[in-house]
Protein backbone atom coordinates (compact mmCIF):
# COMPACT_ATOMS: atom_id res chain seq x y z
CA UNK A 1 0.00 0.00 0.00
CA UNK A 2 1.50 3.32 -1.00
CA UNK A 3 0.17 6.27 0.90
CA UNK A 4 0.59 9.89 0.02
CA UNK A 5 3.65 10.95 1.98
CA UNK A 6 3.72 14.68 2.48
CA UNK A 7 5.73 16.45 5.15
CA UNK A 8 2.78 18.77 5.45
CA UNK A 9 -0.48 17.44 6.89
CA UNK A 10 -3.05 18.15 4.18
CA UNK A 11 -5.86 17.94 6.77
CA UNK A 12 -8.67 15.37 6.38
CA UNK A 13 -11.45 17.94 6.26
CA UNK A 14 -9.46 20.04 3.79
CA UNK A 15 -9.15 17.07 1.44
CA UNK A 16 -12.88 16.30 1.60
CA UNK A 17 -13.62 19.94 0.91
CA UNK A 18 -11.61 19.87 -2.30
CA UNK A 19 -13.77 17.03 -3.58
CA UNK A 20 -16.99 18.79 -2.61
CA UNK A 21 -15.81 22.12 -4.09
CA UNK A 22 -14.63 20.31 -7.21
CA UNK A 23 -17.90 18.38 -7.34
CA UNK A 24 -19.88 21.58 -7.26
CA UNK A 25 -17.68 22.91 -10.03
CA UNK A 26 -18.40 19.84 -12.15
CA UNK A 27 -22.12 20.21 -11.58
CA UNK A 28 -21.95 23.89 -12.48
CA UNK A 29 -20.13 23.20 -15.74
CA UNK A 30 -22.60 20.50 -16.73
CA UNK A 31 -25.50 22.80 -15.89
CA UNK A 32 -23.97 25.56 -17.96
CA UNK A 33 -23.58 23.27 -20.97
CA UNK A 34 -27.22 22.23 -20.74
CA UNK A 35 -28.35 25.81 -20.27
CA UNK A 36 -26.54 26.84 -23.45
CA UNK A 37 -28.19 23.95 -25.25
CA UNK A 38 -31.63 25.11 -24.07
CA UNK A 39 -30.91 28.68 -25.17
CA UNK A 40 -29.88 27.46 -28.59
CA UNK A 41 -32.96 25.28 -28.83
CA UNK A 42 -35.14 28.29 -28.05
CA UNK A 43 -33.16 30.32 -30.64
CA UNK A 44 -32.19 32.85 -27.97
CA UNK A 45 -28.55 32.23 -28.69
CA UNK A 46 -27.00 31.63 -32.11
CA UNK A 47 -25.27 28.37 -32.88
CA UNK A 48 -21.60 28.34 -32.03
CA UNK A 49 -19.10 25.54 -31.62
CA UNK A 50 -19.55 24.01 -28.17
CA UNK A 51 -16.57 24.45 -25.87
CA UNK A 52 -14.63 21.29 -25.20
CA UNK A 53 -15.65 19.13 -22.28
CA UNK A 54 -12.15 19.06 -20.78
CA UNK A 55 -12.55 22.70 -19.92
CA UNK A 56 -13.90 21.93 -16.46
CA UNK A 57 -12.00 24.76 -14.87
CA UNK A 58 -13.90 27.55 -16.55
CA UNK A 59 -17.05 29.01 -15.12
CA UNK A 60 -16.60 27.27 -11.79
CA UNK A 61 -17.47 30.44 -9.96
CA UNK A 62 -21.12 29.90 -10.60
CA UNK A 63 -21.03 27.11 -8.04
Amino acid sequence: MTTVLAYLDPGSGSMILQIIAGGLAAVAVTAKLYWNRILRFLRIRKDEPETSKTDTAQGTDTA
Partner: protein
Amino acid sequence: MGTMADTSALEPGSFRDPESRVFYAGDEVYRALSADGLGDFEALAATGLLDDPRLIGTRRADDVSALRGLLVHEPAGVLRHERIPFVSYPYEWTFSMLKDAALVQLDLLLAALEHDLVLKDSTPYNVQFRGATPQFVDIGSFERIREGEPWVGYRQFCMLYLYPLLLQSAKGVPFQPWLRGAIDGITPGQMRGLMSFRDRFRKGVFTNVFLHARLEKRYADRPDQVKQEVKRVFKKELFVANVRKMRKLVERQSWDPPEGVWTAYGERNSYTDDDAARKDAFVREVATSREWGLVWDIGANNGRYSRIAAEGARTVVAVDADQGPVELLYRDLRSEGDEKILTLTMNLADPSPGLGWRGLERRSMPERGTPDLVLALALIHHVAISANVPVKEFVDWLTSLRTALVIEFPTREDPMVKKLLAPKREGLHPDYELGFFERCLNEAFEVDRSERLESGTRVLYYARPKGR
Protein backbone atom coordinates in the same frame (compact mmCIF):
# COMPACT_ATOMS: atom_id res chain seq x y z
CA MET B 1 25.81 20.30 13.56
CA GLY B 2 29.16 21.34 12.16
CA THR B 3 31.78 23.18 14.09
CA MET B 4 31.19 26.84 14.67
CA ALA B 5 34.67 27.71 13.48
CA ASP B 6 34.06 27.40 9.75
CA THR B 7 31.88 29.82 7.83
CA SER B 8 29.27 27.32 6.71
CA ALA B 9 26.02 27.00 8.60
CA LEU B 10 22.55 25.57 8.20
CA GLU B 11 19.72 28.02 7.75
CA PRO B 12 17.81 27.59 11.03
CA GLY B 13 14.51 28.37 9.30
CA SER B 14 14.80 25.50 6.83
CA PHE B 15 14.20 22.18 8.52
CA ARG B 16 10.56 21.36 7.94
CA ASP B 17 11.01 19.63 4.62
CA PRO B 18 13.39 16.67 5.02
CA GLU B 19 14.02 16.46 1.27
CA SER B 20 15.82 19.77 0.99
CA ARG B 21 17.76 21.93 3.40
CA VAL B 22 19.25 25.38 2.94
CA PHE B 23 22.74 26.23 4.18
CA TYR B 24 25.28 28.99 3.75
CA ALA B 25 28.95 28.85 2.91
CA GLY B 26 30.73 32.17 2.78
CA ASP B 27 28.45 34.51 0.86
CA GLU B 28 26.70 31.77 -1.05
CA VAL B 29 23.33 30.12 -0.49
CA TYR B 30 23.06 26.38 -1.11
CA ARG B 31 20.40 23.72 -0.88
CA ALA B 32 21.20 20.09 -0.10
CA LEU B 33 18.82 17.56 -1.67
CA SER B 34 17.96 13.99 -0.71
CA ALA B 35 17.74 11.35 -3.46
CA ASP B 36 14.01 11.99 -3.79
CA GLY B 37 14.59 15.72 -3.71
CA LEU B 38 17.14 15.42 -6.50
CA GLY B 39 14.72 13.38 -8.61
CA ASP B 40 12.15 16.15 -8.20
CA PHE B 41 14.70 18.80 -9.11
CA GLU B 42 15.69 16.95 -12.27
CA ALA B 43 12.04 16.70 -13.25
CA LEU B 44 11.71 20.45 -12.69
CA ALA B 45 14.87 21.20 -14.67
CA ALA B 46 13.50 19.18 -17.60
CA THR B 47 10.43 21.43 -17.86
CA GLY B 48 12.41 24.61 -18.51
CA LEU B 49 10.58 26.32 -15.65
CA LEU B 50 13.92 27.06 -13.96
CA ASP B 51 14.48 29.88 -16.42
CA ASP B 52 11.24 31.56 -15.38
CA PRO B 53 12.12 34.95 -13.80
CA ARG B 54 9.54 34.29 -11.08
CA LEU B 55 11.89 31.62 -9.71
CA ILE B 56 15.10 32.35 -7.86
CA GLY B 57 18.19 31.79 -10.03
CA THR B 58 19.40 28.25 -9.35
CA ARG B 59 22.03 25.84 -10.65
CA ARG B 60 23.69 22.57 -9.69
CA ALA B 61 26.80 22.85 -7.50
CA ASP B 62 27.60 19.35 -6.31
CA ASP B 63 31.24 19.75 -5.32
CA VAL B 64 30.72 21.82 -2.21
CA SER B 65 33.23 20.92 0.47
CA ALA B 66 31.66 23.35 2.95
CA LEU B 67 28.79 20.92 3.35
CA ARG B 68 30.81 18.30 5.21
CA GLY B 69 29.52 17.62 8.70
CA LEU B 70 26.42 19.78 8.35
CA LEU B 71 23.93 17.07 7.52
CA VAL B 72 23.15 13.65 8.91
CA HIS B 73 23.15 11.99 5.49
CA GLU B 74 25.34 12.73 2.51
CA PRO B 75 23.11 14.69 0.11
CA ALA B 76 22.33 13.30 -3.33
CA GLY B 77 22.72 16.71 -4.90
CA VAL B 78 23.45 20.32 -4.06
CA LEU B 79 22.03 23.49 -5.62
CA ARG B 80 23.33 27.03 -5.50
CA HIS B 81 20.81 29.88 -5.33
CA GLU B 82 21.11 33.55 -6.12
CA ARG B 83 20.95 35.68 -3.00
CA ILE B 84 17.94 37.81 -2.14
CA PRO B 85 19.23 41.29 -1.17
CA PHE B 86 17.16 41.51 2.02
CA VAL B 87 14.92 38.81 3.48
CA SER B 88 11.42 39.90 4.53
CA TYR B 89 8.41 38.18 6.05
CA PRO B 90 4.67 38.30 5.27
CA TYR B 91 3.89 40.06 8.57
CA GLU B 92 6.00 42.96 7.27
CA TRP B 93 4.30 43.10 3.89
CA THR B 94 1.38 45.29 2.85
CA PHE B 95 -1.89 43.89 1.52
CA SER B 96 -0.88 44.01 -2.16
CA MET B 97 2.47 42.38 -1.41
CA LEU B 98 0.78 39.37 0.19
CA LYS B 99 -1.72 39.25 -2.65
CA ASP B 100 1.01 39.36 -5.31
CA ALA B 101 2.91 36.62 -3.48
CA ALA B 102 -0.28 34.52 -3.42
CA LEU B 103 -0.73 34.96 -7.17
CA VAL B 104 2.88 33.97 -7.87
CA GLN B 105 2.37 30.90 -5.69
CA LEU B 106 -0.80 29.87 -7.57
CA ASP B 107 0.53 30.68 -11.04
CA LEU B 108 3.63 28.60 -10.45
CA LEU B 109 1.48 25.77 -9.15
CA LEU B 110 -0.63 25.93 -12.32
CA ALA B 111 2.49 26.03 -14.48
CA ALA B 112 3.92 23.07 -12.54
CA LEU B 113 0.71 21.06 -12.96
CA GLU B 114 1.00 21.33 -16.73
CA HIS B 115 4.20 19.33 -16.41
CA ASP B 116 2.80 16.88 -13.84
CA LEU B 117 4.62 18.62 -11.01
CA VAL B 118 3.14 20.23 -7.90
CA LEU B 119 4.24 22.58 -5.16
CA LYS B 120 4.26 20.52 -1.98
CA ASP B 121 3.42 23.45 0.29
CA SER B 122 1.89 26.95 0.07
CA THR B 123 3.68 29.20 2.48
CA PRO B 124 4.33 32.89 1.80
CA TYR B 125 7.70 32.42 3.48
CA ASN B 126 8.67 30.78 0.17
CA VAL B 127 8.28 34.10 -1.61
CA GLN B 128 10.76 36.94 -1.27
CA PHE B 129 10.86 40.39 -2.81
CA ARG B 130 13.59 41.84 -4.99
CA GLY B 131 12.52 45.46 -4.75
CA ALA B 132 8.83 45.35 -5.69
CA THR B 133 9.23 42.11 -7.62
CA PRO B 134 8.15 38.88 -5.92
CA GLN B 135 10.28 35.82 -6.47
CA PHE B 136 9.65 32.22 -5.45
CA VAL B 137 12.69 30.93 -3.57
CA ASP B 138 11.86 27.39 -2.46
CA ILE B 139 12.97 25.28 -5.41
CA GLY B 140 12.63 22.25 -3.11
CA SER B 141 8.87 22.78 -3.07
CA PHE B 142 8.46 21.38 -6.59
CA GLU B 143 7.84 17.66 -6.71
CA ARG B 144 6.42 15.07 -9.10
CA ILE B 145 2.68 14.63 -8.71
CA ARG B 146 1.37 11.35 -7.31
CA GLU B 147 -1.70 9.58 -8.61
CA GLY B 148 -4.84 10.63 -6.75
CA GLU B 149 -3.08 13.30 -4.75
CA PRO B 150 -5.22 16.27 -3.71
CA TRP B 151 -3.85 19.80 -3.29
CA VAL B 152 -1.82 19.10 -0.16
CA GLY B 153 -1.01 22.78 0.35
CA TYR B 154 -4.65 23.91 0.17
CA ARG B 155 -5.14 24.16 3.93
CA GLN B 156 -1.85 26.00 4.35
CA PHE B 157 -2.80 28.34 1.51
CA CYS B 158 -6.00 29.22 3.35
CA MET B 159 -4.24 29.75 6.67
CA LEU B 160 -1.36 31.87 5.43
CA TYR B 161 -2.73 33.58 2.31
CA LEU B 162 -6.48 33.49 1.83
CA TYR B 163 -7.66 34.14 5.41
CA PRO B 164 -5.21 36.99 6.05
CA LEU B 165 -6.25 38.63 2.76
CA LEU B 166 -9.94 38.09 3.53
CA LEU B 167 -9.54 39.52 7.00
CA GLN B 168 -8.21 42.79 5.63
CA SER B 169 -10.36 42.85 2.52
CA ALA B 170 -13.70 41.99 4.16
CA LYS B 171 -13.17 43.28 7.69
CA GLY B 172 -10.61 46.04 7.28
CA VAL B 173 -8.47 44.34 9.92
CA PRO B 174 -4.73 44.40 9.15
CA PHE B 175 -3.45 40.84 8.83
CA GLN B 176 0.14 41.49 9.92
CA PRO B 177 -0.32 41.01 13.70
CA TRP B 178 -2.12 37.70 13.04
CA LEU B 179 0.70 36.33 10.91
CA ARG B 180 3.30 37.58 13.33
CA GLY B 181 1.34 36.00 16.16
CA ALA B 182 1.24 32.51 14.65
CA ILE B 183 3.85 31.12 12.29
CA ASP B 184 1.26 28.75 10.76
CA GLY B 185 -1.36 31.43 10.26
CA ILE B 186 -5.09 31.48 10.99
CA THR B 187 -6.86 28.10 11.30
CA PRO B 188 -10.21 27.47 9.55
CA GLY B 189 -11.90 27.28 12.97
CA GLN B 190 -10.48 30.62 14.06
CA MET B 191 -11.38 32.26 10.76
CA ARG B 192 -14.93 31.01 11.06
CA GLY B 193 -15.14 32.66 14.45
CA LEU B 194 -14.07 35.97 12.93
CA MET B 195 -16.77 35.92 10.22
CA SER B 196 -20.28 37.24 10.73
CA PHE B 197 -23.47 35.62 9.47
CA ARG B 198 -23.53 38.02 6.53
CA ASP B 199 -20.00 37.10 5.53
CA ARG B 200 -21.05 33.63 4.47
CA PHE B 201 -22.70 35.21 1.42
CA ARG B 202 -19.42 36.69 0.25
CA LYS B 203 -17.96 34.83 -2.68
CA GLY B 204 -15.74 31.94 -1.61
CA VAL B 205 -16.31 32.44 2.11
CA PHE B 206 -18.95 29.77 2.61
CA THR B 207 -16.83 27.03 1.03
CA ASN B 208 -13.34 28.02 2.12
CA VAL B 209 -14.19 29.17 5.63
CA PHE B 210 -17.52 27.81 6.95
CA LEU B 211 -17.61 24.46 5.19
CA HIS B 212 -13.87 24.03 5.62
CA ALA B 213 -14.08 24.57 9.38
CA ARG B 214 -17.02 22.21 9.72
CA LEU B 215 -15.41 19.41 7.69
CA GLU B 216 -12.17 19.81 9.57
CA LYS B 217 -13.99 19.29 12.82
CA ARG B 218 -15.97 16.33 11.58
CA TYR B 219 -13.10 14.38 10.01
CA ALA B 220 -10.38 15.28 12.49
CA ASP B 221 -10.12 11.76 13.94
CA ARG B 222 -10.35 9.80 10.68
CA PRO B 223 -7.26 10.75 8.67
CA ASP B 224 -6.47 7.21 7.35
CA GLN B 225 -9.95 6.49 6.08
CA VAL B 226 -10.20 9.89 4.41
CA LYS B 227 -6.82 9.59 2.73
CA GLN B 228 -7.77 6.25 1.09
CA GLU B 229 -11.12 7.55 -0.03
CA VAL B 230 -9.73 10.77 -1.45
CA LYS B 231 -7.03 8.92 -3.35
CA ARG B 232 -9.65 6.79 -5.03
CA VAL B 233 -11.67 9.65 -6.48
CA PHE B 234 -9.27 12.56 -6.86
CA LYS B 235 -8.24 13.51 -10.39
CA LYS B 236 -5.75 16.03 -11.66
CA GLU B 237 -8.52 17.97 -13.43
CA LEU B 238 -10.15 18.55 -10.05
CA PHE B 239 -6.83 19.78 -8.66
CA VAL B 240 -6.40 22.26 -11.51
CA ALA B 241 -10.01 23.43 -11.21
CA ASN B 242 -9.62 24.08 -7.49
CA VAL B 243 -6.41 26.05 -7.95
CA ARG B 244 -7.94 28.17 -10.74
CA LYS B 245 -10.95 28.86 -8.57
CA MET B 246 -8.70 29.93 -5.73
CA ARG B 247 -6.80 32.22 -8.07
CA LYS B 248 -10.04 33.98 -9.04
CA LEU B 249 -10.97 34.36 -5.39
CA VAL B 250 -7.59 35.86 -4.48
CA GLU B 251 -7.83 38.18 -7.46
CA ARG B 252 -11.13 39.51 -6.08
CA GLN B 253 -9.71 40.54 -2.73
CA SER B 254 -8.95 44.22 -2.45
CA TRP B 255 -8.01 46.79 0.11
CA ASP B 256 -7.33 50.50 -0.18
CA PRO B 257 -5.79 52.82 2.40
CA PRO B 258 -8.17 55.42 3.89
CA GLU B 259 -8.76 58.50 1.76
CA GLY B 260 -6.57 60.80 3.84
CA VAL B 261 -3.54 58.65 3.09
CA TRP B 262 -3.97 59.16 -0.66
CA THR B 263 -4.00 62.92 -0.33
CA ALA B 264 -1.06 62.95 2.03
CA TYR B 265 0.85 60.52 -0.18
CA GLY B 266 1.19 63.20 -2.84
CA GLU B 267 2.15 66.13 -0.65
CA ARG B 268 3.21 64.96 2.82
CA ASN B 269 5.48 67.17 4.97
CA SER B 270 4.59 70.40 6.62
CA TYR B 271 7.65 72.31 5.41
CA THR B 272 7.90 75.00 2.84
CA ASP B 273 9.05 74.08 -0.66
CA ASP B 274 12.46 75.56 -0.01
CA ASP B 275 12.93 73.27 2.99
CA ALA B 276 11.94 70.26 0.93
CA ALA B 277 14.42 71.14 -1.82
CA ARG B 278 17.27 71.58 0.67
CA LYS B 279 16.44 68.33 2.41
CA ASP B 280 16.41 66.53 -0.94
CA ALA B 281 19.82 68.00 -1.76
CA PHE B 282 21.25 67.03 1.65
CA VAL B 283 20.10 63.41 1.33
CA ARG B 284 21.18 63.20 -2.30
CA GLU B 285 24.66 64.43 -1.53
CA VAL B 286 25.17 61.75 1.13
CA ALA B 287 23.49 59.03 -0.91
CA THR B 288 25.66 59.61 -3.95
CA SER B 289 28.89 60.36 -2.04
CA ARG B 290 29.87 56.69 -2.33
CA GLU B 291 28.36 53.40 -3.35
CA TRP B 292 26.24 52.23 -0.42
CA GLY B 293 25.33 48.57 -0.14
CA LEU B 294 22.24 48.42 2.06
CA VAL B 295 20.30 51.51 3.10
CA TRP B 296 17.45 51.50 5.61
CA ASP B 297 14.99 54.34 5.31
CA ILE B 298 13.16 54.15 8.63
CA GLY B 299 9.98 56.16 8.77
CA ALA B 300 10.02 56.11 4.97
CA ASN B 301 6.44 57.31 4.50
CA ASN B 302 5.82 58.03 0.80
CA GLY B 303 9.33 56.87 -0.08
CA ARG B 304 10.59 60.23 -1.35
CA TYR B 305 13.98 59.76 0.30
CA SER B 306 14.13 56.02 -0.38
CA ARG B 307 14.03 56.90 -4.05
CA ILE B 308 16.81 59.45 -3.63
CA ALA B 309 18.87 56.93 -1.64
CA ALA B 310 18.35 54.33 -4.37
CA GLU B 311 20.33 56.60 -6.74
CA GLY B 312 23.47 55.60 -4.88
CA ALA B 313 22.64 52.31 -3.17
CA ARG B 314 22.37 48.68 -4.19
CA THR B 315 19.36 48.00 -1.99
CA VAL B 316 17.02 50.25 -0.01
CA VAL B 317 14.65 48.95 2.64
CA ALA B 318 11.83 51.46 3.14
CA VAL B 319 10.06 50.86 6.46
CA ASP B 320 7.09 52.64 7.95
CA ALA B 321 4.67 51.80 10.74
CA ASP B 322 1.76 53.10 8.68
CA GLN B 323 0.66 50.51 6.13
CA GLY B 324 -1.22 53.07 3.99
CA PRO B 325 1.61 55.04 2.38
CA VAL B 326 3.77 51.90 2.16
CA GLU B 327 1.01 50.16 0.19
CA LEU B 328 0.78 53.09 -2.25
CA LEU B 329 4.56 53.23 -2.58
CA TYR B 330 4.66 49.50 -3.30
CA ARG B 331 2.01 49.86 -6.02
CA ASP B 332 4.00 52.63 -7.70
CA LEU B 333 7.28 50.74 -7.49
CA ARG B 334 5.60 47.61 -8.81
CA SER B 335 4.30 49.40 -11.87
CA GLU B 336 7.81 50.80 -12.41
CA GLY B 337 9.25 47.27 -12.21
CA ASP B 338 11.55 48.34 -9.39
CA GLU B 339 14.11 45.81 -8.12
CA LYS B 340 15.94 48.01 -5.63
CA ILE B 341 13.50 49.39 -3.07
CA LEU B 342 11.89 46.91 -0.69
CA THR B 343 8.83 48.33 1.09
CA LEU B 344 7.94 47.01 4.54
CA THR B 345 5.48 47.98 7.24
CA MET B 346 6.65 47.66 10.81
CA ASN B 347 6.48 49.69 13.99
CA LEU B 348 10.03 50.58 15.00
CA ALA B 349 8.99 50.76 18.63
CA ASP B 350 7.75 47.17 18.34
CA PRO B 351 9.97 45.60 15.66
CA SER B 352 9.86 42.05 14.26
CA PRO B 353 11.35 39.66 16.82
CA GLY B 354 12.95 36.25 16.34
CA LEU B 355 10.10 33.75 15.86
CA GLY B 356 9.42 30.05 15.35
CA TRP B 357 11.43 27.12 16.69
CA ARG B 358 14.05 28.43 19.12
CA GLY B 359 13.14 31.90 17.97
CA LEU B 360 15.45 31.34 15.00
CA GLU B 361 13.17 30.46 12.09
CA ARG B 362 12.34 34.12 11.49
CA ARG B 363 14.80 36.80 12.50
CA SER B 364 14.84 40.35 13.67
CA MET B 365 15.73 42.95 11.05
CA PRO B 366 19.35 43.63 12.11
CA GLU B 367 20.03 39.87 12.06
CA ARG B 368 19.02 39.78 8.40
CA GLY B 369 21.63 42.33 7.40
CA THR B 370 22.87 45.50 9.04
CA PRO B 371 22.68 48.64 6.96
CA ASP B 372 25.60 50.73 5.73
CA LEU B 373 23.48 53.85 5.89
CA VAL B 374 20.31 54.67 7.82
CA LEU B 375 17.95 57.51 6.96
CA ALA B 376 15.92 58.59 9.98
CA LEU B 377 14.05 61.60 8.66
CA ALA B 378 11.08 63.14 10.46
CA LEU B 379 11.09 60.12 12.75
CA ILE B 380 12.71 60.79 16.13
CA HIS B 381 9.83 62.93 17.44
CA HIS B 382 7.39 60.09 16.76
CA VAL B 383 9.59 57.53 18.51
CA ALA B 384 10.49 59.79 21.44
CA ILE B 385 7.17 61.49 22.05
CA SER B 386 4.46 59.13 20.73
CA ALA B 387 6.18 55.88 21.72
CA ASN B 388 7.93 57.35 24.80
CA VAL B 389 11.36 55.98 23.87
CA PRO B 390 14.01 58.15 25.59
CA VAL B 391 16.09 60.14 23.07
CA LYS B 392 19.32 58.63 24.44
CA GLU B 393 18.00 55.09 23.95
CA PHE B 394 17.03 55.80 20.38
CA VAL B 395 20.52 57.10 19.59
CA ASP B 396 22.00 54.06 21.41
CA TRP B 397 20.00 51.76 19.17
CA LEU B 398 21.26 53.54 16.05
CA THR B 399 24.79 53.26 17.47
CA SER B 400 24.39 49.50 17.89
CA LEU B 401 23.76 49.17 14.13
CA ARG B 402 27.29 50.56 13.48
CA THR B 403 25.97 52.44 10.49
CA ALA B 404 26.36 55.85 8.90
CA LEU B 405 23.36 58.03 9.57
CA VAL B 406 21.30 60.84 8.14
CA ILE B 407 19.03 62.03 10.91
CA GLU B 408 16.61 64.91 11.18
CA PHE B 409 15.75 66.55 14.48
CA PRO B 410 12.59 68.67 14.58
CA THR B 411 12.92 71.11 17.51
CA ARG B 412 10.27 71.71 20.16
CA GLU B 413 9.06 74.72 18.17
CA ASP B 414 8.21 72.56 15.15
CA PRO B 415 4.46 72.45 14.45
CA MET B 416 4.42 68.65 14.30
CA VAL B 417 6.32 68.34 17.59
CA LYS B 418 3.92 70.79 19.21
CA LYS B 419 1.02 68.70 18.01
CA LEU B 420 2.52 65.51 19.45
CA LEU B 421 3.31 67.20 22.77
CA ALA B 422 -0.09 68.86 23.09
CA PRO B 423 -2.02 65.96 24.63
CA LYS B 424 0.84 65.12 27.01
CA ARG B 425 1.24 66.37 30.57
CA GLU B 426 3.29 69.56 30.86
CA GLY B 427 6.97 68.84 31.58
CA LEU B 428 7.08 65.39 30.02
CA HIS B 429 9.92 64.58 27.59
CA PRO B 430 12.49 67.06 28.96
CA ASP B 431 15.10 65.01 27.06
CA TYR B 432 13.48 65.98 23.76
CA GLU B 433 15.66 68.98 23.26
CA LEU B 434 18.15 69.93 20.52
CA GLY B 435 21.20 70.43 22.78
CA PHE B 436 20.72 67.12 24.58
CA PHE B 437 20.16 65.26 21.31
CA GLU B 438 23.36 66.71 19.85
CA ARG B 439 25.34 65.63 22.93
CA CYS B 440 24.02 62.06 22.57
CA LEU B 441 24.82 62.02 18.87
CA ASN B 442 28.33 63.40 19.34
CA GLU B 443 29.15 60.75 21.94
CA ALA B 444 28.87 57.86 19.49
CA PHE B 445 29.09 59.49 16.07
CA GLU B 446 31.38 61.75 14.14
CA VAL B 447 29.08 64.44 12.78
CA ASP B 448 30.35 65.32 9.31
CA ARG B 449 27.76 67.88 8.33
CA SER B 450 24.69 69.52 9.74
CA GLU B 451 22.24 71.98 8.31
CA ARG B 452 19.34 73.90 9.77
CA LEU B 453 16.50 74.10 7.30
CA GLU B 454 15.18 77.51 6.30
CA SER B 455 12.08 77.36 8.50
CA GLY B 456 14.43 76.98 11.49
CA THR B 457 12.64 74.17 13.31
CA ARG B 458 14.36 71.24 11.65
CA VAL B 459 18.04 70.26 11.69
CA LEU B 460 19.70 67.63 9.49
CA TYR B 461 22.86 65.71 10.40
CA TYR B 462 25.13 63.38 8.50
CA ALA B 463 27.07 61.26 10.99
CA ARG B 464 29.44 58.30 10.86
CA PRO B 465 30.12 55.86 13.70
CA LYS B 466 33.24 56.75 15.68
CA GLY B 467 36.36 54.74 14.90
CA ARG B 468 35.32 53.79 11.39
